């Protein structure tokens, strides 16, 4: 690196360090970032503890279910809870807006229930204090405020001509200015990252962290890389605008407008565009569709199963069957119901994904949308991983019902009025095991976001030197 670049960077850095306003801004943003990371860690550790405790308690409750008919126990139900990943401390994504629990029930499959946001006051609609909001909204603002006068300010003061007359190359000047802006930002981010990583290490080494849910260095590295690209985009755009704008004021106005559209307008506009483009069914309509599908099942399916069983065992009367046809009806009925729910849930989640793709596509003009979706994916707090978990819950429900229904099929006598089971049967139901998807799986879901971020990054890397080469001197 040329010495002159470093000198320019040093001069820029000293200027920022000496400016009281920026010292305040840095202090405020650093405090906010560190506080939100620590809060995120505390929240993660607390939620993780609660979920683990609730999971263990739910298992105990299931095992202590009073003696009852296995089908009645299935109707009594069982709750499972979605675990949280350590990086949710950085980006809680959709966690507040999606349910935390899933009720397993006979005949009916349920989506997640109990959104934490329902138990909040209206003020939380302004914005949540998370590390992700600071990284996605406030740091870009700081970059804008740091870099807008880079060229425009020097030009207004007449020092740009002076600098160039000393033989400083435009490219070196641009690189030095960029480096000078990056220095303070890194000074902010490096300690914050260290605090965050230490906090997360601490949180995930606590007792009770489920297998596969420990701190993922691969996900963290990808997240850090993503944010670095995001900040580079802002720094590049700011330098370009500063180089081309007639005055520092015009540069500031243009950049603030870009920041405002990127961070505040685009998420809302793209969310509404996605809502209008892909219409979701109302809850009642969704349930009606499921009912319609259930009505498509031939009405005599139970009689046919009974007849098949009688033929198979060569008996003439149901009472003579060595197995219970009711159990067979339940086994087959739950298979039919599960398939219907799977189809409808898939349709719903596919609609969500189509909406999400439209939202991600907004990253073409607002890079925050690309960064935001990628960040939630890496934090494990996104729609795709909610779908992954919902599917796993569906599979576990089948396993759970199989144990209960097969017990009726093999052990209850046909027509037996009172048939109850207890703990020995409840213990045969295994606990739900869930492994979160790996990094490659996550990245494959965010190809559009990654592509758009990379595109922006590439555009900035190519266009910034070109724009700076033509920097206006007067």
């Amino acid at each position, binding site marked *: 690196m040329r010495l002159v670049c470093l000198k320019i960077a040093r001069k820029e850095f000293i200027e920022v360090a000496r400016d009281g306003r920026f010292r305040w801004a840095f202090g*405020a943003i650093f405090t906010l970032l560190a506080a939100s990371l620590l809060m995120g860690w505390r929240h993660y550790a607390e939620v993780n503890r*609660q979920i683990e405790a*609730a999971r263990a*308690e*739910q298992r105990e*409750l299931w095992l*202590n*279910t*009073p003696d009852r008919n296995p089908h009645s126990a299935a109707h009594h139900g069982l*709750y499972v809870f979605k675990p949280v990943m350590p990086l949710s401390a950085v980006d809680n994504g*959709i966690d507040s*807006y999606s*349910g*935390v*629990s899933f*009720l397993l*029930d006979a005949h*009916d499959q349920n*989506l997640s229930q*109990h959104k*934490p*946001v*329902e*138990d*909040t*006051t*209206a*003020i*939380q*609609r*302004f*914005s949540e*204090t998370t590390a992700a909001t600071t990284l996605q909204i406030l740091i870009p*603002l700081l970059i804008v405020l740091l870099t807008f006068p880079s060229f425009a300010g020097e030009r207004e003061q007449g020092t740009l001509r002076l600098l160039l007359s000393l033989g400083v190359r435009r490219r070196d000047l641009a690189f030095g200015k960029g480096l000078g802006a990056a220095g303070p930002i890194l000074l902010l981010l490096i300690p914050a990252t260290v605090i965050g990583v230490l906090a997360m290490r601490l949180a995930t080494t606590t007792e009770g962290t489920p297998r596969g849910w420990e701190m993922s260095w691969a996900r963290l590295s990808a997240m850090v890389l993503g944010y670095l690209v995001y900040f580079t985009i802002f720094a590049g755009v700011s330098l370009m605008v500063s180089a081309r704008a007639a005055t*520092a*004021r015009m540069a*500031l*106005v243009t950049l603030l407008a870009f920041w*405002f559209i990127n961070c*505040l*307008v685009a998420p*809302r506009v*793209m*969310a*509404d565009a996605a809502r*209008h483009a892909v219409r*979701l*069914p*109302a*809850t*009642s*309509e*969704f*349930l009606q569709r499921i009912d319609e599908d259930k009505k498509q099942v031939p009405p005599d399916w139970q009689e046919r199963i009974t007849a098949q069983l009688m033929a198979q065992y060569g008996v003439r009367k149901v009472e003579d069957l060595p197995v219970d046809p009711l159990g067979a009806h339940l086994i087959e009925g739950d298979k039919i119901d599960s398939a219907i729910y799977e189809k409808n849930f898939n349709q719903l989640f596919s609609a*969500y994904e189509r*909406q*999400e793709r439209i*939202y991600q596509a907004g990253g073409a003009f607002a890079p925050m949308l690309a960064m935001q979706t990628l960040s939630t994916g890496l934090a494990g707090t996104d*729609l795709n991983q*909610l779908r992954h978990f919902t599917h796993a819950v569906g599979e576990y429900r089948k396993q759970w019902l199989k144990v209960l229904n097969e017990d009726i099929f093999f052990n209850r006598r046909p027509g037996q009025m009172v048939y109850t089971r207890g703990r020995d049967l409840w213990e045969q139901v295994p606990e739900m095991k869930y492994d979160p998807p790996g990094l490659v799986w996550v990245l494959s879901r965010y190809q559009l976001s990654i592509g758009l971020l990379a595109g922006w990054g590439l555009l900035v890397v190519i266009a910034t030197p070109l724009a700076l080469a033509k920097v206006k001197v007067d």
Partner: protein
Amino acid sequence: MSDLMSGLAKIIRHEWRMLRADRTAWVVLVLFALIIEGAIFNVSATLREKQEAERQAIRDEAEKFRRFHAEAEEIEQQAALRGQPPPQFQAEAKYWDKPGPRDSIFVGAWNAPRIVPPPSPFTVFAVGQCDLFPSSYKVGIDGKMEWQSRGRVLQRLDNPLLLKAGRFDLEFVILYLYPMLILAISFNLMSGEKEGRTLGLLLAQPVSLRALVIGKVACRALLVFGCVSGLSLSGFLLSGTDFGGGAVRVSLWLVAVIVYGGFWFALAVVANAIGRSSAANALALAVAWLAFLFVIPSAISFATTSAYSVPPRIEYLNAARKIEDDVRRERKALIAQYLKEHPELSRWGWTLDNLGVGYPHVPEAMPEKVEFLEMIRRLQPVIARYEGPLAKQQALADRCRFLSPAVLMQDVLYDLAGTGRARHEHFLRQANAFNEEWNIFFDVKPFRREMVSAADYAVFPRFIYREESPGDVAGRTIVPLSALTLLPLALGWLGLRAYRRFPLAG
């Protein structure tokens, strides 16, 4: 006085000519007009869908009960034709004996109505929290509707990612963009004149500095308030929003928009009074915008949730499940106690042996009722652990809201729009009262060994939502609206006082 007024009129006319000549200001205003209309049309389209969905839900429920009514009449007519009384209550009936529209459990419990919270016709002011509340509640015997379990509370299917992103609605335009517009046209109110070296010339005219400030602000305020009010009202009309006689709410909304805008104008007056450059004013006002719209609301939110954290619902689920199991184990003792407390039951022939007959007979619903009553009683302290902190959070947020005009404005907008927690709780109170009425009507029937007659269908409790009265809404908004009115007045007064020391040169 008349001199002052004519002086002000002259300044306003002069400012108007200056603004008319500024093409950038017009571009900004046209953009703003498009944004307002876009936000109104965007939400009104969604509102119409929601209203239609609610009407459809009401139609479906009515149709279901009309069908049951016709079937019940048919059964009774057939019996009359045979010269027999209609079928009587069968205590020993099994629940798979296909109960019909004359069985109270079938009608009152299995087919109990689902109540949809009616969308507020004023949603166009602010979507608020209405997209976060459940889409419907089913009438049931398990206590308060909002705490019902087992899928009775139907969640909305909205995409959580989009819910988090929020809506491009009039609330967003008014809370965030509108102050920006005001600051954009007034950050250099006096500093611009000073930097353009025209201030001295202006003051050489028979006009005071304060009259000049007031005139400049008045011209801009008239323009902005006129545009926002006119555009919004025309947007409401063009989008076909039916306020159904909501003149009070619309008027209060206009007042709120004007006083909220007044605060930002007053802030610009204060920033200009300090006498720094236009660039410094712009930066200071941008920081104020950021503080009032991000930093302070986030700090309030953090303070409220940290001071009174609401436990996650997973704890409630486990507690409810545990109580359910305990109560089930104690069923016999509970029924014995219930029989003791309700001696009338023995008059109708119920004893511990036949009332607790249990599965699979239809009277299972009766011991279940006894169990649920006990469950509700035992759940009260658990529910209080949730409702208590949330109420305290709200109380703390209410006290802190005076720190930011944006938070005050949000409160006013949600109340006027009817999309906040207050109206939802108003709905829940009515729904819970209906729930109780419904349960009283049906629950007593099996205990009395009665069936639902066709005539009963005419006297079923019906849920009719009564909208909040404009007086109630106005009463709730009076405090934040008064604070919003006082803020610009106090700030403007301070700003005008500061012009005494305004440096005219340098």
